[in-house]
């Protein structure tokens, strides 16, 4: 079975990154969701962000 079809047969478990209202909407429907405290990596500095991601 393809991964997409597996998803269709599974309970949805979501990571929400960005607009908090989407998290609020999903919570209100009792969907399993976590909201990330997202912010631009390295304060939005591209060069620094790329260095940081290489550290992982």
């Amino acid at each position, binding site marked *: *079975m*393809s*991964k*997409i*079809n597996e*998803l*269709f047969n*599974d*309970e*949805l*478990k*979501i*990571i*929400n*990154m*960005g*607009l*908090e*209202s*989407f*998290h*609020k*909407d*999903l*919570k209100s*429907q009792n*969907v*399993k969701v*976590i*909201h*990330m*405290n*997202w*912010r*631009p*990596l390295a*304060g*939005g*500095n591209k060069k620094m*962000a790329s260095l940081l*991601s290489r550290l*992982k």
Partner: protein
Amino acid sequence: MGLSVEVRKNTYYDSVTLMLISKEIKQIMGVNEALVGMGTDLNKELAKNLNLINEDIKKLGPNDFFIVANLEDDSVIEKVIKTVDNLLIKKKSEDSSEYRPATLDSALKYQSDSNLVLISVPGKYASDEVKKALKNDKHVMLFSDNVSIEEEIELKKLAKEKGLLMMGPDCGTAIINNVPLAFANVIKKGNIGIVGASGTGTQEVSVIIDKLGMGVSQVIGTGGRDLKSEVGGIMMLEGIDALLNDKNTEVIVLISKPPAKEVSEKVLKKVSKSKKPVVVNFIGGDLDLIKKHGAYPSSTLEDAAYKAVALAKKEEPMDFNGFSLEKEKIEKIVKKEVEQMDSEQKYLRGLYTGGTLADEAMKLLTKDLGHIYSNIPLDPQFKLIDVNKSIEHTCLDLGDDEFTVGRPHPMIDPSTRVERLIKEAKDEEVAVLLMDFVLGYGSHEDPIGEMIPAIKKAKESMVKKGKHLSIVASICGTNNDPQSLEISKRKLENEGVIVMPSNAQAVKLVSEIFKKINS
């Protein structure tokens, strides 16, 4: 007075929250102009245009939060800051004590069985986050826009290679396992699967399926550019395969603006091999080509929904191009509206929040009304030079970029449309206003309540001039949506608005009204 500025370094909030707060702050007594935002280039540009820029603001980075205001009296700043803080607390999810990971890696560790990442961060950061999610075998819905087409192709190729969904960028709607994601309605569970490259078009079809008593298995969004030749329909083709293999899907509906020719052929080739019936709406596309490939073409979004419902019930699908109400009732409505108008009133103003719905309206109306001016015209020669000034027959997509710089989409914040409605009603040549109201998750909690005072004012001002402003609307919503279709409809009808069961029928009623005006 000078500018009052409050800066909080390394404090991040999302743009929609902050745009809504900016709007509220401007209502405070003593505030001439105000902006609340993160120190992004876009917000600095906006601050400059509002004459709210100074050296402090110029120095900020995208992780820095700021409040800047031009005040009648410096002391008002305390009230401004207090209001901002209260609103920030109010906008937070109820249970903010729960753990909120800062990176995707830590989120994946914390909720290791996650299967979908919903991404709505600013476009320039989105692609990196999507890549991370896909590499971790997670399906993605990418709501963010401002993602380049090159990035889109790269991400979709990666998703395809890994057998994952990558819905977007600029994917406004999806319903996976009956969970509405981002902007979506609460639709009954059923056996119709949809793949849509157009947000409000997809919402309209799913809503009408629900109104007709049936439901959806899955609604997969692809983002608006998926069927362009560069992207090649990657996600629509993947979506069709998934629905073909899904035991709960018995009928498939495909929705898109007219695709690139070679993409259309690729998609229809797959459709021609399908054992499940497929209804296609390539809004204004080639109907014969669809038929030739064994699919069911549809002339409107509503027609697509009707055909899908018939097929889902194992009935023969028929064209649906008319009204749900009897002919006599429609004639009565038209007569009543037109007899109250005066001879000066001859133009239509369409005020849409849904781009596809505006596009469908223009396609259906041009035959009877002739050319229609717009910010998204069918023919480039009828593009409005100034989008703030309507000319003759005009139909606007108020969710388009020109109207949303620094402001939330009109489905979230109705104020742009409230202002425009009042403005249009001052034009004595206007006969009819045509509007959509999109309910569901993601949309404003009461889009109709926000519009009612303007509707009242507009109607009254026309009556004072011995005229009648006809307002025709459709509501893209269901009774299970948080705003409730039935309650919303009643509120509009109480103000004399004619509410039709679909955008297509609202448009057809408008055509009938103009036929009567011109007869």
